[in-house]
């Protein structure tokens, strides 16, 4: 039988300051870059035109640039996309044309005729695989929607956590998830990934996944708090993380296997989504262990719960005085779980 990290007894919480340093090292430069350069939003958000072409021969982006320049289409971005003979041409809407609905559509037609002039007539010399033309109004609406989606998902998960756990647990979980969003934004910025609605979808899925991960550890913390009355929170957190470690590694492994398969094989369109998802699983697992758990400890210390075990959390385990038997209710987080039949 293969057992990974069975009976592990690592002192995770001890390493929390290193973890903070590591994540700060990811987030701060990423955010500095984000503030300076912003994110690379897809035309869904900015409005504009995207055209994916496949040429008969790999002509190179310069040739396409030349074709567009000759037709007077200046500020288009050209990018090789997947195969050597496939290119994506993006023309985002500037401020000037943002007022004109319908201008995106004419751009698509202009690009088509420019390519026909330079490369030769359509199906033999080049093929337009995909066109997206998004007017400024739709783009603005989508920005609002994406913002709302992230906001709502926070509110809803907060309410859910409030119902299922005591508020201290909920706050720690939400802060850890917020941390994940920050690291993911930094990651998107580092790789300069295009932020499309699907990538926002990946971020939201990450919110669910990371919360899920934190909940599983907290669920164990809640259980252990009831089981071991004498240990302080520091020990219980470590114990719970260690106990759930095999699960974290396994689930991390299976989910990661699918996202890496998506990164490598699912094609260019899905790649940003798959990359963000892969990173999200990593950061979600990391934050559940190194961010959520220590945060819970600090929160308990600052606003102690009923049996105030968090207050003693930072003291070395050996010096803990014997505690009187706690009240039957225990901490707020230790309500009786329903023993639903399986």
């Amino acid at each position, binding site marked *: 039988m293969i057992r990974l990290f069975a009976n592990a007894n690592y002192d995770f919480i001890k390493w929390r300051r290193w973890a903070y340093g590591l994540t700060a090292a990811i987030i701060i430069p990423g955010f500095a870059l984000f503030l300076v350069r912003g994110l690379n939003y897809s035309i869904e958000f900015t409005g504009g035109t995207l055209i994916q072409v496949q040429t008969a021969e790999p002509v190179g982006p310069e040739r396409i640039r030349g074709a567009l320049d000759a037709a007077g289409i200046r500020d288009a971005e050209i990018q090789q996309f997947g195969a050597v003979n496939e290119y994506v041409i993006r023309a985002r809407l500037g401020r000037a044309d943002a007022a004109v609905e319908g201008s995106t559509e004419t751009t698509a037609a202009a690009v088509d005729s420019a390519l026909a002039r330079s490369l030769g007539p359509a199906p033999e010399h080049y093929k337009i695989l995909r066109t997206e033309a998004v007017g400024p109004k739709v783009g603005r609406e989508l920005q609002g929607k994406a913002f*709302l*989606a992230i906001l709502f998902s926070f509110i809803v998960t907060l309410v859910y956590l409030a119902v299922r756990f005591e508020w201290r647990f909920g706050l720690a979980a939400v802060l850890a998830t917020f941390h994940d969003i920050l690291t993911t934004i930094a990651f998107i910025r580092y790789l300069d990934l295009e932020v499309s609605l*699907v990538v926002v979808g990946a971020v939201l*899925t990450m919110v*669910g996944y990371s919360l899920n991960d934190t909940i599983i550890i907290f669920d164990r913390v809640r259980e252990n708090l009831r089981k071991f009355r004498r240990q302080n929170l520091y020990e219980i957190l470590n114990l719970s993380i260690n106990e759930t470690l095999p699960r974290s590694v396994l689930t991390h492994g299976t989910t990661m296997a699918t*996202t890496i398969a998506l990164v490598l094989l699912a094609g260019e369109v899905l790649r940003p989504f798959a990359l963000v998802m892969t990173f999200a699983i990593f950061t979600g697992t990391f934050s559940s262990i190194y961010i959520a758990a220590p945060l819970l400890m600090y929160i308990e210390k600052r606003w102690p719960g009923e049996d105030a075990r968090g207050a003693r959390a930072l003291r070395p385990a050996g010096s803990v005085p014997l505690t009187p038997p706690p009240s039957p209710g225990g901490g707020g987080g230790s309500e009786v779980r329903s023993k639903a039949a399986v």
Partner: protein
Amino acid sequence: MRTIRSRLLAIGAMLALAVWQLIPTNVTQRVRDATTGRMKDTTIRRVPINLGLDLQGGIHLALEVDPSKGPVPDCADAIQRAEKVVRTRIDEFGTSEPVVQIQGRCRLIVELAGEKDPARAKSIIQRTAFLEFRITDMKNLFRDALPGIDKALERAGVRASGQGAPAASVTQLFGTDTGKAKGKAPKTPKGKAAAKDTTDLNAPGPLSSLLFQGQVPGEYLVPEEQVPVAESLLARPDVQRLMPRGIALEWGTEVLSRAGRSYRTLYAVEDKPIITGEYLQDAKATREQLTNQSVVNFWLSRRGGRIFERETGRHVSDYMAIILDGRVQGQPPIIKSQIGQRGLIELGAKPLQDAQDLALVLKAGALPAPLTIIEERTIGPSLGQDSIRDGIRAGIVGVALVVLIMVTYYRLSGVLSVAALALYVVFTLAGLAGFGFTLTLPGLAGLVLSVGIAVDANVLIFERIREELQHGKLVRTAVDEGFLHAMSAIVDSNVSTALTAFILYLVGTGPVQGFAITLIIGIAASMITAIFVVRTFYMIWLDRRPDMATLSV
């Protein structure tokens, strides 16, 4: 034992239901005939999962009323008219199931799967609506011309056999008439003798056999399945030549149901309108309180009123077809008396909805709403196929890795979870098919991803069982406890993922909604398989080996 049996029954029932949802069915698709360029029905067999435009290729358009062509006082009203207009043109699109729907208040979404020519599709949608009133064929000129048309067709039908769709349809019709002709037609493609044979048959003619007289003069009913045949016959130049002077044929929008069969209406109408939509000013549907009848009031311009007065005066007791973009709308009403600037169409006991529809048609002709395209996505069919291929390849590799991890780590228990995983995939696909959701490219990614997440429930359970075993519990107790203790974590985590997916569904558009839906269905299916199905497998296993001392987990 009894619980095992009822559990197996439940699993069997779920599986049967799922497989039943996924059985390939015959789907009728309207496709463009490559040689004639007309639309025709074909039946294909496929698994009934809707593919999004990003997977099958096609055009997605979002339209709004163009404010640059004059002020838009009420965009919701204008977009309703536009929707009506686009719907009447639906047959012109080269696609099987076009989606035309109003999104929000003032936006029209048109989705044309498989359409390859965006320029043509856009021109069909943006063309200005054309409304006209025409008098139906009161003298039955078309009916009188039918025998002549039939004769010509019979002569031509045999001569042209083996020359593409129209001729083949004629042969087929002969086939239904007599066994003799059925045997002969294919054998003698060019034989003059065969032509004589068929003329001598004296059976109902190729065209007239398709037409049934309607209630109104000039109205004919064509069985729905024969519509493409009739269309191709009527389009033939020799038939066109024999059409009576001053009479044109126009299809109706209505599908009538008589004795279990559905019929489309075909109208013989005068080829010149008595008045066109440009003279119309407004229309309104109401329900008369006294008589409890649905009526449509319409108003004409001053000049239109004069023309209409003159024309209706000449045509009292005639029937007047209301034609929008070449489609007769509803049943032509009778002209009871001379009408001036203000007219009234009585729909009798028909529901108010019908009157509102008709008012919308009249207004569509009166106040054309120029549409502007605010969003356009065109995906070539080859790109869609590539996406499907890549997605499936990534899915197979990803799932294979998950299977490998589970089986090497949890051994026999891992095998159980993999068996449950197979059920999970079937359930998820059946969920998509059964509820009629659309599988998109991000949805495909969601499906692959959810396989990785789906085993999490099993991992939680297995780890718990291992812990319980380690604490020296008996196998049976350890399994029971493992499932019991893992429960709250599984429920919590799945609910939180489902909640975020649901929000994504609410705010997302097409492809992203597809992702959210797949994720939600995947979560539901994984809960069922990981908890219920794997538990049942364990029960059977423990039932077979009650004295089992160690568990392969």
